């Protein structure tokens, strides 16, 4: 009897428990739905207007659509080519036809520009070939063998070529192309066209690292006098590291000083630190321009003090960039440092001193490890900010002080080379990501100690 009752009770209890669990789960789901719907608008906004544009931009680094669009017949025909020696006749004929297609001229020029990124001079080769092909001998059908050369041919033909001025008529499309420019006889130009038909291309990413595809198809460094981007990456890294270091050296004493002041004076000094932080970067850069110019105030002062008789170049060089960038970044160093310093109880250092440690030992063994989280956070912030700097180097730097951001902007605005801009952006983002990871791990391990 009793066992049955107990069994019945247990059954009811589990039933109740299950029901309770279910309704709890339901309530939890409901609550989570509210959280999700609160976050969703910003998440969607950021995704659509930030993540998508950046990823769409990144796809340009490997996009390879120009050649198939500009030279459709050639792209189709060149698939049959082994890659060795001269391509077969149909390829040559296809190229002649593609270049004579006046309706597709814009796309052809696009393809020419794309090929020029692969081999310098390709653009000129194509425009020259187009001009020569459209000379009076224009044939309605290129694939048919042309048999007569008009009188004007040699005149037009020799007008800008380095090739043999052929009086004899070219027998086929291949010979005709080679007669316009001997470079069409070199396999590497055809290999470049073939590379242009790949689904994706590595050339922009390679260019961003000063690499190229060699004639034998392997990856090689570009010749030393064409190397730009490795030095640029190193410079971006170096300037950022230098600014970070100077900011640490200057920011640490100031933060320490503020912490030691009485509360009222400390908040006044903090206010003075915050004023530059809130002042537009453009305004601050302008102020430095005024100060550092050749006939600027600092040079007046230097000459007045007879430190130098001639004006010292302080602007449009590395000095100007470093000074202005440190000025912009310093508050970001001081803020986290100060907030950490304020949270350290003075009893720690006092305890160490009372146990007989020398001031230097107290500083390096006790105080510095305690401050380290703030120091690394500030350094991380400053370093990452510096990597992306554009306005300040552009205004107070010389041509040799520009950083990655400047070259990204220039690739798009001046050269319309989206592939290169995208590749350089990827390099920049990777450096930022590595810096984030490294310093995160670094500061985390420092905290663990």
């Amino acid at each position, binding site marked *: 009897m009793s066992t049955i009752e107990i069994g019945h009770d247990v059954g009811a209890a589990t039933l109740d428990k299950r029901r309770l669990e279910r309704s709890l789960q339901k309530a939890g789901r409901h609550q989570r739905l509210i959280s999700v719907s609160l976050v969703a608008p910003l998440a969607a906004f950021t995704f659509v207007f930030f993540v998508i544009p950046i990823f769409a931009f990144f796809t340009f680094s490997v996009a390879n659509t120009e050649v198939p669009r500009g030279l459709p017949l050639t792209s189709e025909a060149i698939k049959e080519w082994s890659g060795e020696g001269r391509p077969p006749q149909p390829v040559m004929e296809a190229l002649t036809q593609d270049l004579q297609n006046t309706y597709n001229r814009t796309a052809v020029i696009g393809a020419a520009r794309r090929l020029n990124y692969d081999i310098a001079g390709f653009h000129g080769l194509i425009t020259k070939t187009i001009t020569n092909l459209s000379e009076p001998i224009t044939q309605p059908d290129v694939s048919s063998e042309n048999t007569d050369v008009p009188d004007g041919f040699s005149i037009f033909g020799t007008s800008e070529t380095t090739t043999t001025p052929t009086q004899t008529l070219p027998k086929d499309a291949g010979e005709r192309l080679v007669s316009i420019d001997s470079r069409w006889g070199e396999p590497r130009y055809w290999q470049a066209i073939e590379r242009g038909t790949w689904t994706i291309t590595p050339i922009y990413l390679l260019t961003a690292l000063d690499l190229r595809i060699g004639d034998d198809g392997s990856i090689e460094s570009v010749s030393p006098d064409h190397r730009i981007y490795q030095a640029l990456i190193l410079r971006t890294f170096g300037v950022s590291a230098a600014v970070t270091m100077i900011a640490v050296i200057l920011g640490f004493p100031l933060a320490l000083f503020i912490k030691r002041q009485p509360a009222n004076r400390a908040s006044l000094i903090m206010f003075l630190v915050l*004023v530059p932080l809130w002042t*537009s970067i453009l305004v601050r850069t302008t102020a430095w321009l005024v100060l550092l110019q050749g006939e600027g105030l600092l040079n007046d002062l230097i000459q007045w003090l007879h430190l130098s008789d001639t004006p010292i170049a302080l602007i449009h060089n590395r000095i100007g960039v470093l000074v202005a960038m440190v000025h912009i970044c310093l508050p970001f160093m001081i803020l986290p440092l100060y907030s950490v310093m304020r949270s350290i109880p003075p009893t720690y250092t006092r305890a160490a001193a009372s146990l007989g440690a020398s001031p230097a030992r107290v500083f390096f063994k006790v105080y510095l490890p305690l401050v380290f989280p703030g120091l690394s956070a500030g350094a991380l912030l400053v370093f990452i900010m510096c990597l992306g700097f554009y306005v300040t180097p552009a205004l107070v730097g010389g041509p040799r002080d520009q950083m990655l951001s400047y070259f990204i902007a220039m690739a798009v605005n001046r050269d319309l080379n989206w592939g290169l801009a995208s590749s350089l952006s990827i390099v920049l983002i990777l450096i930022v990501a590595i810096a984030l990871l490294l310093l995160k791990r670094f500061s985390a391990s420092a905290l663990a100690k």
Partner: protein
Amino acid sequence: MTTTAIERIASTLVAVIAIAVLFFLMVPLLVAVPLSFNAEPYFSYPMPGLSLRWYQEIFGSTVKGIEWRNAFFNSVVIGVSASILATVLGTSASLGIARGDLPFKQSLQAMMLSPLVIPVVVYATGAVYFFARVSLIGTYPGLIVAHALLGTPFVMITVTASLAGYDRNLTRAGLSLGASPWRVFRKVSLPLIGPGVASGALFAFVTSWDEIIVTLFLAYPNQQTIPRRLWAGVNEQLSPVVIAASTLLFLVTLCLLVVTEVLRRRNARLAGTL
């Protein structure tokens, strides 16, 4: 005895360096501002005479004056709109995150804060292509959206910080007493996290107010903003008008800074009483 001497020397050294650094932070602004009152278009002291002619150029009825005021108007419209958009989205997201039961919290948070670490030039370049595809390039909505995006991380940071000191039992109490969630937010939560929301809104406004890179890439030539005119002025020929405009900009940000400082203190006081 020696330790105190060393300590004294060390602290004197720290003070000297600190004051020099403060000087370095303040001087460029202090030196540049008076030059906007220079009677002659030079940048050297002593000034031959004082005049307000450069300010007159900004406030006058000449073409240039109209252009400056037009730029000011654009900056305000874009800044206020971007700030409102960023504040609404950022506050809502922070409230959602603070509830603590959000799935994929880490990655969502990282994504929403990413505008803070991605170099602006990279974003601006990507935005040119994307915004052109959706016909937002050269439009006010386009600029407002892009500026708001750059401001949202700041709103999230300030609002999240003020929510850290917020007792969720207050919300529960309000709800259990029968108030609607919206009413609880407006009557209980918002007054308490208000200073955080307001300083987030100010940060978002200043982000837009100072923004030059995205504007350079996305705006059409007729969409002048104050930073854009300054950029052109510095790039072409540095004239005292640019310094005068910079001074005005500086004064505006100074006022905003005072406002945030007041808000911060209020926030701290509220957090202290609760």
